[in-house]
């Protein structure tokens, strides 16, 4: 059943969000700490486990695959509702701060990626 996959996906997101919210509460901040990341881990674990086979194979897999294929359209809709006007009117300070943070972070990607692969060789 296609809906089994969708239901598994929903369960993973809800559990992840609950865990993320609880983690935020435990740390004393009003934010969801990694809820989506935890949900993704739950989905990875269940899709790699034989116990969840009926929920992750056949038609059920298509139910998850549909949402995965809707990812880019949803991201386009997300881009279309960003507050671009506010970003553009934030003045020079906001633009310089944002651009500088991105440029420095981009530059760090190859450096930290190397750190990861070196750790792997050891």
């Amino acid at each position, binding site marked *: 059943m296609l809906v089994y996959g969708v239901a598994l996906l929903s369960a993973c997101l809800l559990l992840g969000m609950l865990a993320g919210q609880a983690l935020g509460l435990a740390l004393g*901040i009003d934010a969801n700490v990694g809820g989506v990341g935890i949900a*993704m881990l739950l989905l990875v674990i269940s899709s790699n486990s034989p116990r969840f086979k009926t929920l992750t194979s056949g038609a059920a897999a298509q139910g998850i695959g549909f949402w995965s294929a809707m990812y880019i359209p949803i991201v386009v809709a997300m881009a*279309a509702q960003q507050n671009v006007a506010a970003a553009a009117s934030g003045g020079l300070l906001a633009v310089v701060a*944002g651009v500088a943070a991105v440029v420095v972070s981009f530059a760090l990607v190859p450096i930290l990626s190397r750190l990861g692969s070196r750790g792997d060789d050891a």
Partner: protein
Amino acid sequence: MIDLITAVFTRNSLIVAFAVIGATIWLSYFIADKLTAGRIHGSAIAIALGLVAAYWGGTVTGGTKGIADIGLLGGIGLMGGGMLRDFAIVSTAFGVQLGELKKAGLAGVVSIFAGVIVSFVVGAAVAVAFGYTDPIAITTIGAGAVTYIVGPVTGEAIGASGDVITLSVAAGLVKSILVMIGTPLVARSIGLNNPQSAMVFGGLMGTTSGVAAGLAATDPKLVPYGAMTATFYTGVGCLLGPSILYFCVSAVF
């Protein structure tokens, strides 16, 4: 006639969004194929069109939700809102191998902390360069360079003024939009072509929307890896901003 269309479209706003976004993506892939001969990815063009539309919507309506503030297109707000976005992001993890995640696990965690601290320091330095000397304002603007959520959370926690908080949100928005547009352009030169570098990338950039759109326009296969680390970033930022980072800034200024 106009009333009839308005009534039907507003009552079925999510369906309108599916149709409009579908047409936008068709147009984008057409442009990518015919005008750039496939050099620029169709989804990169679609995201750029979305941002242009968002700018236009924001200027016309004066609202904060881009094109979604235009009545007939309100469904785009639901389609691209947090709920469906997170649902779709999680679905991309289907089929990911646990081994790939473990391989980059440590580098991923390091990159989250490095990303928050580096963006904060850069943002704070820019604030100082623009003449700010008040540690509260410097911290808030630095936190805004982390993400547009960390900025106001930090600012409100340490008692920043409204216009400084607004400035921090604007800095975070600039960052997020630049990551969306810039990622496909720099992907090759920063080695963003495997799960490991995608996890590091997500941890360093941290803006969920920026990473989600940037990786989608670069290589959709990398999305789950980048999104996984990026979702921890804002939480870590909210944790460090009003505490350790603020104390450090206060000690210097």
